[in-house]
């Protein structure tokens, strides 16, 4: 069998096999049970003492959200100041200048929102100081923030009738010390062994074999790459992210990094099952997500390995598949696999240029982000699925004439309204953003040619992808788009804020509201949510919402691009 396909299969197997035990472990951590990682407890106590946090205080959902929003607001100030001032700060051996205000605004928001859209290139746009004290720090703590929100929701759904949903600071700290940091250390060490740089020296200058001068950017890359993957952040150390040969030196590191993207989001589904003691529900959710993810891989891998029709027509050999924008050591199959993995989660790191992939792969990437809940970002991905679950419960309840209930709690108008708003916000910001930028581009052709790297349908795809990626807090891009302009920095920045915080607030609120309700024991009249039929129902609800909202835009972008001869 083809070794490229075997690589993809191995990758898939490693994910599916290892997510189950990790999920069990994460559930134990949030429950506060004994685990092997208890040696981290002194570090956690130190953090609580320094900050004046009482870890035994339980918060209600409003206090929980207040703490979450306050810390995020402070991160915004922290990031803005450091990014603008980085030129004067230490650890800047390459002498890179501070970012402009609009660029710093975009960078800061995008890392705060766990999106990691990058309108700069790591080699020239950041110093080692900001790489470590803004970028890497945010990659840890914003991921932990998403995980804490999910832990809060799980806690709310577990209780019979309760106001308390747990302590935000404790969930967040444990997410860092017990899950993210140990895994990041493991991945980091493996990367260093394989040749990823981890030093504080500036660029190396050398003379090549043919006698030209070449400079090589390096630095503390191996500290940032593991957490960029594990925290579903995606912001690369180098400009071209994991297609850079120092960031991703060989087939093994590629597999490791790609594994690190999805392992925690997958494990979170089982963490939920263990936490709520509803393993069957977890298997049902996992089944739906895995089916959608695998279907995407099959389509994209076959497209990329099949190669580009236009190149085929030129009469050259395309044995390796479509290779524009891809690396030889990675190959077209693993590039397609990564493209799907990075878009089903909110990761957004890339190991090939998505702009240059074949049209249908581009469409699958956008569709994954437009649906935004097949595994999704650490914590928040499952929360998006949760919104759809609430809607599916309501719709099926109406269809079969039963009171809509989820986990023993009645779903009523108030929860439905919030869930619907959260679900509809996503297509709204993507389509309005794309419409606005297309309108500007049509009325001012100069603007269009300044922004877009490719003409016609693919140009529209570039803009659609940018807003989709921002709204899904993904951060990958059709990077041909010239996006470091005030218009793109600010408009995508606004989309980022809306689509990170509205859903989190809405979903925690739903969980908090459900938690306060009276627990109704399961009876014959209860609609069962852990069955194949209900899973199918949820899938259909998700697919109809996404397909109906996005199909017209996709038809004008990637589908038209595909049909062009």
């Amino acid at each position, binding site marked *: 069998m083809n*070794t*490229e396909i075997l*690589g993809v299969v*191995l990758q898939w197997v490693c994910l599916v096999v290892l997510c189950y035990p990790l999920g069990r472990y994460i559930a134990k951590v949030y429950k506060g049970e004994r685990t092997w990682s208890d040696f981290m407890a002194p570090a956690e106590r130190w953090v609580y003492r*320094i*900050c*004046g946090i009482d870890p035994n205080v339980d918060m209600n959902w409003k206090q929980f959200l*207040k703490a979450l929003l306050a*810390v995020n*607001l*402070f*991160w915004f100030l922290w990031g803005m100041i450091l990014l603008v001032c980085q030129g004067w700060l230490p650890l800047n051996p390459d002498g890179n200048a501070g970012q402009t205000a609009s660029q710093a605004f975009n960078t800061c928001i995008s890392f705060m929102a766990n999106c990691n859209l990058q309108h700069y*290139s790591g080699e020239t746009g950041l110093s080692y100081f900001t790489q470590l*004290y803004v970028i*890497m*720090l945010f990659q840890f703590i914003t991921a932990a923030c998403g995980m804490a929100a999910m832990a809060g929701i799980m806690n709310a759904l577990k209780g019979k009738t309760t106001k308390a949903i747990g302590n935000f600071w404790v969930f967040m700290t444990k997410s*860092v010390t017990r899950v993210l*940091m140990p895994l990041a250390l493991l991945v980091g060490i493996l990367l*260093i*062994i394989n*040749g990823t*740089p981890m*030093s*504080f020296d500036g*660029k190396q200058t*050398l003379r*090549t*074999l*043919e006698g030209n001068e070449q*400079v090589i*950017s390096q630095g503390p890359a*191996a*500290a940032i790459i593991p957490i960029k993957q594990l925290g579903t952040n995606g912001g690369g150390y180098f*400009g*071209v992210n994991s*297609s*850079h*040969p120092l960031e991703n030196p060989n*087939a*093994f590191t590629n*597999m490791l990094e790609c594994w690190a993207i999805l392992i925690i989001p997958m494990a979170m589904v089982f963490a939920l099952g263990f936490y709520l003691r509803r393993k069957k529900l977890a298997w049902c959710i996992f089944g739906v997500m895995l089916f959608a993810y695998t279907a995407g891989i099959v389509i994209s891998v076959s497209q990329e390995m099949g190669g580009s029709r*236009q190149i085929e027509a030129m*009469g*050259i*050999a395309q044995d*390796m598949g479509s290779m*524009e*924008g891809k*690396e*030889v*050591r990675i190959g077209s199959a693993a590039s397609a696999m990564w493209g799907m993995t990075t878009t089903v989660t909110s990761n957004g790191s890339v190991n*090939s240029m998505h*702009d*240059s992939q074949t049209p249908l792969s581009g469409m699958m990437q956008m569709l994954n982000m437009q649906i935004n809940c097949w595994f999704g970002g650490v914590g928040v991905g499952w929360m998006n699925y949760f919104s759809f679950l609430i809607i599916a419960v309501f719709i099926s309840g109406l269809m079969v004439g039963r009171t809509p209930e989820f986990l023993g709690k009645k779903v009523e108008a108030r929860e439905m309204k919030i869930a619907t708003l959260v679900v509809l916000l996503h297509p709204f910001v993507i389509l309005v953003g794309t419409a606005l930028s297309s309108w500007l581009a049509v009325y001012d052709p100069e603007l269009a040619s300044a922004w877009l*790297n*490719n*003409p016609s349908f*693919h140009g529209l795809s570039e803009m659609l992808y940018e807003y989709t990626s921002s709204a899904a807090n993904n951060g990958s891009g059709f990077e*041909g788009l010239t996006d470091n302009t005030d218009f793109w920095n600010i408009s995508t920045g606004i989309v980022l804020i809306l689509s990170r915080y509205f859903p989190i607030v809405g979903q925690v609120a739903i969980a908090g509201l459900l938690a306060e309700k009276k627990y109704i024991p399961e009876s014959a009249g209860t609609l069962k949510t852990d069955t194949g039929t209900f899973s199918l129902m949820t899938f259909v609800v998700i697919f109809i919402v996404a397909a109906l909202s996005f199909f017209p835009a996709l038809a004008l972008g990637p589908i038209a691009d595909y049909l*062009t001869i």
Partner: protein
Amino acid sequence: MKSFWISIKYTVAMCVLLSIGYVVVLRLTAKVVSPNDGEAEVVTLDGRIVGAANVGQTFTDTCYFWGRPSAVGYDGGASGGSNKATTNPEYLEEVEGRIEAFLTAHPYLSREEVPSEIVTASGSGLDPDISPRAAAVQVKRVAENRGLSETTVKNLVDSLTRQPWLGLFGTPKVNVLSLNVALDKMSK
């Protein structure tokens, strides 16, 4: 306001734990296990550093094997891909130009023997490798220009071809720089 005050202290505490603690652990690990003390690994010829092992460089001389086209001219300080869509007519013209140039340099090849990866730009612009097939089509040219037999050059390529990981997963590849350095060593 109390939450905000906690936020400030919390962020600083996390800096100590992560931006200092975690980073220092990895830096010390790199001192021990990294191939080149945490810096990009380099390749030397006669005691002179001629390149980074994992970063590609430009080769235009007919005595050398050539790497893939690069959208950034193999600038290791600023990586980048072309980001061209495979449906873009301007892009297709560019590829056509590369195919013709490659055929001119290798007149013994027919068009369908040209592998697409040698005329399309890599994602990073720094791809250090080519496929065994892309090396095979250049063997005759390199052998002629160096006055070596085709078999010698072909054997060298075969010995430097790296098989997929564990022989099973991924792609086979040839590192262009190590191949050319080996050629230079051989010609001495």
